[in-house]
């Protein structure tokens, strides 16, 4: 168990190290002068020189990378040249929107998909199963950001039940949740469809096993067999996909936040790209990538809890 955890942790750290190098290198190897690129062609020479110094461009690349990484480890991502504030604080401010949005979408996904998947599997090839499969096929094909636009048109512009965009802050929790509701539904739809199909497939696979027949033969109720015997054993692929989805929700939020004008990490990174604020882009991308990698690590840990046989696997 300890060897398994150590190996997974090393993979996580190695991925993070390489990712940080890639993020640094991509933004450092820009053709031309990054400082000039950020400030524009008309910027005065003194401003460019000052930014070059701030960015450490007058030092060797390796020393810049070392200094940047040392800062990142303690949460210092540098100072944004457009917002004039610490990037770490800026990211933390935006995560307060992005993480709850991803969390809400994931909760919706799990709450809807697991029962739907089990239900469809229990009614294999009957009309209810076919209906769930057709709906999930459509759900997978609809782009989340288009759904977000349609939801805004129907429930914000038409019915006025939800705000059309923006975020009031967590000072008013109910209004904040209301602002996150439509984007979370839009983000969750495709993931719900995918998880429903995965749950159904995993359940059908397990339902064909001998121990399910044994459980029925022992007189266990259909509900008990379905949830206690079959569902528990179908969890490995379901958790794998859930982990991938959580990572996807965090990055998928980049697009959805821009539909609903939510001040999250995705909106921050897009604005930073438009303003060519490389220091902010670098910090945001690293945080997004680190979150995706950390989720993959947590999924590996979850495997070990769900299925002890996997601990020995590489």
């Amino acid at each position: 168990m300890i060897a398994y955890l150590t190996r997974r942790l090393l993979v996580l750290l190695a991925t993070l190290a390489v990712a940080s190098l890639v993020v640094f290198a991509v933004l450092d190897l820009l053709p031309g002068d990054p400082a000039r690129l950020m400030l524009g062609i008309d910027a005065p020479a003194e401003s460019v020189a000052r930014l070059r110094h701030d960015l450490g461009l007058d030092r060797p690349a390796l020393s810049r990378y070392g200094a940047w990484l040392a800062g990142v480890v303690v949460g210092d991502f540098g100072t944004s040249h457009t917002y004039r504030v610490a990037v770490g604080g800026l990211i933390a401010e935006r995560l307060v929107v992005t993480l709850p949005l991803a969390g809400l979408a994931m909760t919706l996904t799990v709450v809807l998909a697991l029962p739907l998947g089990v239900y469809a599997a229990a009614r294999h090839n009957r009309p209810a199963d076919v209906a769930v499969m057709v709906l999930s096929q459509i759900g997978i094909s609809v782009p989340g950001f288009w759904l977000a636009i349609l939801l805004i048109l129907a429930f914000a512009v038409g019915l006025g039940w939800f705000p059309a965009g923006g975020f009031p802050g967590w000072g008013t929790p109910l209004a904040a949740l209301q602002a996150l509701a439509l984007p979370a539904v839009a983000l969750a739809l495709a993931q719900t469809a995918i998880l429903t199909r995965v749950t159904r497939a995993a359940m059908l696979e397990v339902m064909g096993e001998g121990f399910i027949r044994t459980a029925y033969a022992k007189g266990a109720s259909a509900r008990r067999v379905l949830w206690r015997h079959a569902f528990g054993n179908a969890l490995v692929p379901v958790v794998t996909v859930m982990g991938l989805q959580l990572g996807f929700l965090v990055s998928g939020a980049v697009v959805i936040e821009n539909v609903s004008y939510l001040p999250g990490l995705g909106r921050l990174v897009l604005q930073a790209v438009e303003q060519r604020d490389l220091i902010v882009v670098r910090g945001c991308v690293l945080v997004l990538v680190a979150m995706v990698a950390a989720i993959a690590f947590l999924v590996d840990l979850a495997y070990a809890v769900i299925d002890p046989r996997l601990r020995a696997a590489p």
Partner: protein
Amino acid sequence: MTRALVGGLLVGAVLTAALLSLVWTPHPITDLAIGERLRPASADHWLGTDPLGRDIASLLLAGAQTTVAVGVVAVGIGLIGGIVLGTLAATRGGFVDEGISRFCDVILAFPAVISALLATILLGPGAVNAILAIGLFNVPVFARLTRACVRQVRVRDYVRAAQALGKSSFSIAWDHLLPNVAGVLVVQATIQFGIAILAEAGLSYLGIGAQPPQPSWGRMLNESQTYMFSAPWLALYPGLAISLAVLGCNLLGDSLRDALDPKTRAMVGARHASG
């Protein structure tokens, strides 16, 4: 069977629209008629006009070109890169395998949207850069799949026989390994095609994919949002076009998978979550 038919028809419709728009659209897509702006559907403009007075039906037809180009090139990059890396990893093993597997981990840690953002900073916004970013993200998807399939096939007797005959690694891979994993790769390619369409639409919506005047369904959705209150129908058609195109790819992919050996189904299982 119905699935294959519907999927084939939808994908066929997108391909036909893309080809047709090369030679004919109801109105030229560069025709700006400000006096005709934001008109609802009529006999002259079947789906109405956009804020610049352009014919929406014509824009949709021409937008299919971008969609097909993105799908073909992004999946092509993924297939070529993935097959080479996956076959190398499976047949060489050891450090090569470990190196390629870790490379895939790192690339997959950068979701397509993030890679596209980085590509935008490096190379500027544009459809080509978006395609490259989506294609790069496809490489590990195909590399992992090829690796898993080739590892299963390479221990078969006919491969061992070819080795005993002294055939080169390349000709073994080309003659014996790849033909036996091609089916699974074709299925995955169909599904990745749909994912590429969704990714391009998302990037163009954000303004970092296709740039004007190149028509793109994602970009049309972006432009529709400004007129959400006055012309809500603008958001309807491009979204519907994207959804139907992706639905077609998914239906076709699913029916192809079912037509193959059932044992291969598990290998293309967790496909969409990777997008």
